[in-house]
């Protein structure tokens, strides 16, 4: 069934167009470029976003707001189609897996991907999420959703930067849930510029399959690419 799907996808491959649409959407809606003439903080030079906005101590010229894409149903459908192609290429015979991610940024991506797999290929996959911290009441659990320990899990996230979200996810899955984490992860964006991308720890390698990488965007401020920040008043 999977191999038939691969043929179908190859025959109906609109990947380039979908990547183009997603790139335009991110460029116009999800990438905030600092105005070089504007002071965002008295302790920072003009045109640099301060630490309180970006988390970066040296200040940055730009900030990604990828949740705008994650919360757009049309964009997540396009994204799911690209991931589906990659998934079937990577695991042509593997039908027994589940999808996982970290709350709450990955939830819309996971649900959209799950729906796309179900709609297009009638592949039913289980989805669960891992919380950043254990719940402090009730069941004191780390996860939301049902977890099947006998099925390996594919990690999905919007952005891979240092990989800390993934390592947290992997630790919870392997130590607490006893679930195998597949050596591939899917993301929209990775903040590195030279493929192929791997996360490595203790001689274990996890390949990151990202639609975009850092080199795919132009970070210089342009008036025609002016993106507003949420609550962008006195940043």
């Amino acid at each position, binding site marked *: 069934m999977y191999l038939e799907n691969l043929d179908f996808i190859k025959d109906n491959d609109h990947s380039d167009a979908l990547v183009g649409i997603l790139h335009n959407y991110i460029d116009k809606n999800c990438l905030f470029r600092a105005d070089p003439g504007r002071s965002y903080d008295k302790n920072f030079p003009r045109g640099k976003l301060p630490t309180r906005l970006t*988390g970066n101590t040296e200040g940055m010229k730009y900030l990604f707001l990828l949740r705008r894409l994650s919360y757009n149903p049309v964009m997540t459908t396009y994204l799911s189609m690209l991931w589906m192609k990659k998934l079937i290429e990577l695991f042509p015979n593997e039908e027994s897996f589940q999808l996982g991610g970290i709350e709450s940024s990955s939830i819309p991506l996971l649900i959209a991907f799950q729906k796309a797999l*179900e709609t297009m290929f009638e592949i039913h996959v289980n989805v669960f999420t891992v919380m950043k911290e254990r719940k402090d009441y009730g069941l004191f659990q780390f996860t939301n959703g049902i977890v099947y320990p006998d099925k390996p899990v594919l990690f999905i996230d919007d952005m891979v930067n240092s990989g800390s979200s993934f390592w947290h996810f992997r630790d919870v899955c392997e130590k607490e849930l006893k679930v195998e984490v597949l050596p591939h992860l899917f993301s929209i964006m990775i903040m590195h510029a030279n493929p192929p991308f791997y996360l490595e720890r203790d001689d274990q390698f996890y390949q990151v399959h990202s639609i975009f990488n850092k080199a795919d965007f132009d970070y210089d401020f342009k008036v025609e690419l002016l993106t507003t920040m949420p609550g962008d008043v006195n940043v």
Partner: protein
Amino acid sequence: MKSHNQEETEGVVETELAKFIVKECMTWSEDKTMHGLAPGARYSYILQLAPLLMNAEWMNAISFRFNSMIQSMFDSTTIQLAGGEPNALPIITAINAYRIRCGLEPFPAFWIRKERKNYGPHNAIEGKPDPDRKVLLFYDMANSTNTFAIAERVCDTHGLVIVPYNFAILNKNNHYQEEPYKDKNSGREIKSILEWEDVKHVLGESRLYKG
């Protein structure tokens, strides 16, 4: 007006949904050892709808029922969906995926944070609200309705207008099904796919449930 299909499934879906919730979403502790958030609070059961929210088949059924409910209530081009993180995220994503699958236009959507982000843009809202559309709030469960109150306050501060109804999958407040349940804070009617009475009906035979 209800479709023939909807009339046929009404009642059956509620019962099966209630059974799923009792089986997959409720965890029991006979001796009330489960701690609540309030100091000293102990519960004999915990109800968390996450297994339902992550279940594609049930979310299809819920999306179908929701679309049927709102068909006669709103012009779909004038509303946008919103809810609180994290539990409204899978609901709204599933509804929009269902609409795309049916060839319907998906709703614009945004999410309301429990607390403002403590870094970055310090935003209370994630996503891009459409100022020209009214907001329809959808949550997994209407319980204390505090979550609705927070969402309503955030929408007010952003100048967004909310429709007169709030939606939930399960209304956990006890009330007679013939009477519409209104939120004590805002007076908005809460419309739900499932009433707590439906779940109680399934729980009736459970030895653990004590009302």
